[in-house]
Every structure is written in C-alpha cells, then in structure tokens.
C-alpha cells in the first residue's frame, strides 16, 4: 500500500508548530521522526474480503484535508482533587520527565500513516497525571473543533493504586466550508493496581473525517475501562485497544454508535492478553438508519503466556433501514489453552412482535420503534458507570430518533 506524501508538509511546518509551543527537544525529535515515517508508513489495516474492502481509507485526500498551521480548538478541562489535568504546554515545565517517559510508549508514533501524521502535527490534547494513591472521579475535557483539520494527543498516566474517571467529548464549533479531518490519539499508562475509566463521545459535523486511536497499557492488577461513543462525522475510524501486560489486569471496552445519512463507522475493539489471570469484556451496540454503514472488528488475542485468561466479546447491530449495511468480524486468536473465551455478533431489525405488542397498546408505530431503539442501547448503557456520560449518550440517541 502506498501512501500519499502531503506536499504542503515539510520539516519547517513541524518545527514551526513545535516552536510556537516552545516544546522540548525530545518532542521536536519525535515529531520529526513521525514526519519522516510518512514516507513509508502504511495506512491502518482494513478488512478485505473477496472483491470488497470494508473501509476505503485510501480515498481520503489528505492534501486538501490537512491544514497544519491553522488548527484551532476550544478545549475546557475540568477537574477537582489532587490530579493534574492540563494541556501539554502547561505540563512541560513541571511534568516534563513524566511526559517524556510515557509519550509514545503505548502508541508508537510511526505505527501507521495516520498516527505519524497525528504526532507530527498535533496542537491540542490533554495531559492527565494521577499520582500514587489518588482517586478522582470527575475529569472532563470538552473540546470544540474550529478549523479544517485538528490533531489531538492525549496522555493519561495513572500511578500505583491511582484511580481516575475521564470523560472526553468532541464537537464541531465554527463552520468550515470544506471537508474536515479530526485525528485523536489517546494513550493510557495504568500502573500497578491503577484504575482508569476513559469515556469518549464524538459528535462532529457530518463533513468531518475522524481517525481515533485509543490504547491503554494495563500493569499488574490494573484495570482500564473504555467507553467509546460515536454519533458524528461522515467517516469514523475508531480503534480502542488495551494491552493487558500485567498479571491480573482487566479491561472493558464498551462501544455505542448510531449512524444515519451516509455515515460510515469503522469501529474496532481489540485486547491483547499478555499476562496471567487477565480478563477482558468487549461490548458494542450500534444502530444504523438510512444509508449508514458500519464495520466492526473485535479482536481477542490471547498470548502464549496468558494463563488463566477470561475473554468475552459481544456485538449487536440493529438496522432500521434497508439501505443500511453492517459488516462485522469478531476474531479470536488463542495461543494459550488455559483460556475461556467467547464472542458473539448479531445483526437484525426491530423485532416485529415487539412492535406489534406496543402498537396493540395504542402506541404510535414511530414512537414504538423509537422506544425499542432506546431499549436496544440499554444493555450497553447499563455497563456505563458514569451517570453524566450515560445521560449524554441517551440524549444523543433521543435526538437522533426525533
């Protein structure tokens, strides 16, 4: 696969971004390495079956989508307690060492073309640092994208026995006439016995193409729980991944999406069991209306040293329209026999009998359908422990059904 060079991008561009932000040398070097990697880095893998490619990333025209020097966003960060939540700019001085040590430790910036592009050009994002033993619940990051392209980089470091819940939301602010591109990389380092819950709600404008890669490194007894909700964008490529590197570590990945118009969601949930006694639970539910299309890949990879693994995966798609399309591929890769693993996936429509029952109770058919769609999300919403986030998702579902 050959990727396209972006002519307007040069070392100068990257240096200008870094200088404006007064960045330390190591980060400038990391950015330049990422830029150099664009020459050869492949696009992220997409699923192919005979005669079909499930998502066409090669069709993205980065030359026009990427406008590196005019990135603009409004980001509000809110946190109470003994926790550091700030932009990278504010963190360099005091937490430079932590940043340097952990940045790029979970996601290799040169891993693929889109990660390299993102690291080379990011101008926003959040640094969350939770010191040993500290527990905080309400860290919120609300961002608005105000430019043609925006590259965001988030790093969460939770030290031993720290606990944090972070809710991130991204919406479109000022209108831009053209197609837009949003790139969001999130790295989580969860130390021994740390507990990180990271919720993300994406509701960007329908002219936006979104690439989002979120990956966590779970240490001994650590748990990393993700909630990934996608409502907006024309095309969304979302990868949410956990590496269970520590004995006894756990991860849950909860996903929801609701597509309409000609939206395309490429949703991926992956977990690697690399240590003993690890547990993973992947739960995704999505609804497709009109001409929307979803692609789902779930991977449960159990390594040879992952003794006593438990790993579960469920994916359900509800189709409201005949023009919609749902593709799914839940995969199990098992190298250790001391494993209990299962996955399931379903695609279906609103149950005719349920609908009939509600109608027989004199509920209007549209209202009845909407009730059933809201009900469809309930098993996933129940997995979301944060009330505020659950209410936001419920509100967006209701809005889309109106």
């Amino acid at each position, binding site marked *: 696969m050959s990727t396209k060079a972006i002519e307007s991008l040069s070392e100068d561009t990257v240096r200008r971004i870094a200088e404006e932000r007064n960045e330390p040398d190591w980060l400038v070097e990391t950015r330049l390495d990422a830029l150099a990697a664009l020459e050869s880095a492949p696009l992220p*893998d997409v*699923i192919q*079956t*005979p005669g*079909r490619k499930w998502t066409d990333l090669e069709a993205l025209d980065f030359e026009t989508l990427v406008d590196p020097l005019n990135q603009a966003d409004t980001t509000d960060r809110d946190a109470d307690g003994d926790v550091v939540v700030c932009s990278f700019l504010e963190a360099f001085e005091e937490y430079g060492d932590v940043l340097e040590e952990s940045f790029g430790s979970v996601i290799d910036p040169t891993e693929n073309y889109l990660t390299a592009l993102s690291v080379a050009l990011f101008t926003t994002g959040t640094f969350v640092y939770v010191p040993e033993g500290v527990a905080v619940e309400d860290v919120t990051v609300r961002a608005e994208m105000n430019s043609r392209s925006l590259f965001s980089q988030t790093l969460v470091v939770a030290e031993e026995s720290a606990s944090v819940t972070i809710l991130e939301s991204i919406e479109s602010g000022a209108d831009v006439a053209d197609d837009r591109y949003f790139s969001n990389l999130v790295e989580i380092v969860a130390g021994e016995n740390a507990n990180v819950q990271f919720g993300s709600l994406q509701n960007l404008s329908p002219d936006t193409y979104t690439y989002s890669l979120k990956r966590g490194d779970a240490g001994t007894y650590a748990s990393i729980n993700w909630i990934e909700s996608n409502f907006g964008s024309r095309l969304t490529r979302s990868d949410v991944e956990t590496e269970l590197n520590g004995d006894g570590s756990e991860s849950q990945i909860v996903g929801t999406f609701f597509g309409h118009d000609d939206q395309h969601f490429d949703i991926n949930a992956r977990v690697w069991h690399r240590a003993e006694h690890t547990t993973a639970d992947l739960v995704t539910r999505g609804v497709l209306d009109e001409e929307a299309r979803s692609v789902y890949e779930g991977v449960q990879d159990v390594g*040879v040293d992952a003794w006593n693994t438990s790993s579960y995966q469920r994916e359900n*798609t509800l*189709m*409201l*329209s*005949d*023009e*919609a*399309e*749902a*593709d*799914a*591929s*839940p*995969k*199990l*890769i*098992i*190298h*250790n*026999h*001391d*494993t*209990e*693993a*299962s*996955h*399931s*996936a*379903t*695609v*279906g*429509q609103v149950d005719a009998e349920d609908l009939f029952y509600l109608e027989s109770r004199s509920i209007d058919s549209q209202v009845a359908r909407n009730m059933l769609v809201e009900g469809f999300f309930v098993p996933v919403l129940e997995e979301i422990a944060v009330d505020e986030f659950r209410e936001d998702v419920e509100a967006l579902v209701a809005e889309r059904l109106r």
Partner: protein
Amino acid sequence: MSSEQEHLKETDTEARFEFKKEEKSAFKADKGLTEETIRVISEDKDEPEWMLQRRLRALKQFQKMPMPTDWPGQPDISEVDVDEIIPYIRPDVDVRAGVDDWTELPEEIKDTFDKLGIPEAEKNALSGVGAQYESEVVYQNMQERWEEKGVIFCNMDKAVQEHEELVREYFMTKCVPPSDNKFAALHGAIWSGGSFVYVPEDTTVDMPVQAYFRMNSEGMGQFEHTLIIAEKGSEVHYIEGCSAPKYSAFNLHAGGVEVFVKEDAHVQYSTVQNWSKNTYNLNTKRAIAEKNGRMEWISGSMGSKATMLYPSTILKGRGASDNHITIAFAGEGQDIDTGAKVYHNAPNTKSTIESKSIAKDGGRTNYRGLVHIADGAENSSTAVECDALMFDNDSTSDTMPYMEINESKVDVAHEATVGKIGDEDIFYLQSRGLDDDDAKQMIVSGFIEPITEELPIEYAVELNRLVELEMEGSLG
C-alpha cells in the same frame, strides 16, 4: 485379544493410510507446468479442442495471479512451488475410464483400496463407487437400478467424452471460474480425474455414492474435478474420502468441486479428508442452490500439512438453504485453516454453520468464514456457531468470521467459544476408573458428537476412529 480387536489394532494409521506402493505408471508428466505439459495431458486424454482451450486460458490466469499471501494469519504455503510438482501420473491400467470390477485392477492398486476398505463399503452401504489412483479414476461402478433411472455417475474424463454438452455447459463456467483464485486457475489448467454426477428430475438416490482419492507417488499433485448436477426435485448424497502416504517432499491437492442444486433439489456433500501430513490441501468447493434447493457440506479435516478450504454456497433462489458442518483436527505440524462461505442472494434464504475444531501438540486450527447477505435478500437468516477445544499451550486456535449484511430484514447470529479440555471433566471420568487417555478421548468424542451424528453411521465410525488414532499415545 478377540479377532475384532485384532482388526482394530490393524487400523493403525501407518498400516491403514500410510502404506506406499511402488510407483508404476503408464504415463508420467514432467515436473512443472508449461503450455506444453497441458497440451500433452489433453492429448493423452484425447480431449475435445474446447477443453484444451479452457485449460490454456486457465493456465494464463494462473500465471497472472499472485500467490495468496496477504490473508491475516494464513498458513504458510511458501513451500508450494508448482514447478516442483508432478502434475499428471496415469496409472498403468488397461481400461482407461475405470474398470467396474475390482479384480481387474493391478494387484497393488486393488490392494490399496482393499486396505482402505472401499470394496467392503461398496457392498454394504453405497449406490456407487469411484476410485481414483494418482491422476485417473481406476474403478467406477454404480448399481444398475440407478443407471436405469438415468442417473449418471462416471469419472470426469469420461464425462468430457460421453456427456460433452453437459460438461461444456457447466464445467468451470458458472460456479467456479478459473479466475476465482490462483489454485482454482491451476486446477482449471491441469485437472484430471474426479467424478461427474447427474441426477435427473425427481429422482432420489437413497444410498450415497462415494469417490475415493488416493495419491501414491511422492511429489505429485492431484487435481480431480467433481461436478454434480442435481435436477429439479432430486436428491443425492456424495461422499469423498482422500488419503496418501507420507513423504518428505510436499504433495499438493488442488481439487475443484462444483455443485448445482436445482429447484427443490437436495445435495449432501460429505468429505473425510485424511491427506498425509506433507500434503497441501488447497481446494475450491462451491455450490449454487436455486429456489428451495438445499445444500449441505459436511467436512472432517484430519489430515494435510496445511489446508485452506472454504466450501461455499451461493443461495441464488428464493427459499434456498445451506448447512455447513465442519470438524477440523490439527495435530503436530498441521495448520488447518478452514470454514465456510455463504452468499445469500435471494429472499427467504437460510444458512447454518457449525464448526468444531481441536488443536493439539502445536497444531493450529482457524475457522475463517464469510456470510454475505445481499441487498434485497429479505427474511434471510444465518446462524454460525464455532467451538474450539485446545489441548496444550503449543497449539493455536483462531476464529475469524466475516459478516457482510446489506439487508435489514434479516436475522444474523454468530457465536464462538474457545476453551481447554476441562480438568474437572477428566477428573470425573478418572474417578470412574478411566485412564487419562481414555477420558480425553471420550471428551473429544463428545465434543464432536453433534457433528458426527449428522454423518451416515459408517462415516461417523470412521471419523471417530481417526480422532482416536490422532489422540492415541500422543497425550500425557
């Protein structure tokens, strides 16, 4: 030991499948694949010009297409070099289209099939038998009562001569075109032997017909073609078995199977694959089912070094249905990558896929399957169930299903589980006085039972015995 047990002892894999016969051939092609090779094979078979042209077109396809190497987690087939393969060996028999009396066969060939138990099975449970040795069918017989009803069961080479119109219409034109994949193209170029089955309208062939494929020579490739046409309202059960002795060099099996299930027809295709563990099994099998037609694929994959085989069904007519039942057993050095492919192209179509796989001693199994529901195939349903059992930590068990759903009025479900053989189950059986090996064997038999019970009794027994052989002694 009773005589019955003596017999079982005889059924050691070495004795039953891996005996080698001295190579005696009437015609043996050179290694490798050129246009010249194909012309020579075609001429040796005295084929009509159109078949030669089809072969040559397929050869061009083959040369053009790349080796499939970019599938996620696919078996390593880099060793497969077609230039190292002997594509065609005509065994030294007098009657070219296969005799209908076992005693007319040369002693070493007759002995081969005796050992494999084919004549015995023919007497007891089959409507007809074809037996292929190297590249050609050497024995072919069907009970007269079927012939009278117009059922055709003959070898493919003979069908090209005697049923030319049918073959010309159906052979690699509508179902598996040579362009389907590289090994289908290879097959189209150098196919030899195989079966042709034609069942006329409203005819039910109530006992199965069987074909047995045997490779004896080192370094050869077997490329038999099976074409089954089941006319409206007919019913037939086709069984194939395959085996070869083990050699150090690799053997290649790239068969082609095309099944036409017409309106209201019902075809069951059962395979017990026990190729030697130096054989690459790269097969293409496909069925097209028309209105209310029913296709069933039942496969037991025990042998081969690497298998890449995904029997597929195209549900073309309204109300057509498909049933896949698959058992894969990968032991030491084996990579069994198998599954199913179903295309729902019409309304009210239905498919069920059941897969059971067992990996032990460093073997790898992978269920790779695709279910595609086209736009407009409303009220279709599919259910996929994959279960895997792992014995040890050197083995690998993967599950890679793909679902493409373009229609909303459907019911799609996929489920898979992977687990190890249960310590508690073994403990329970041991507490009942069974030793460790017997307990494990019993658990495996229970694990695959939902599938063996779908097989005719002879084959269920055969499959169970193969599983026992695989399990024997290697545990502990």
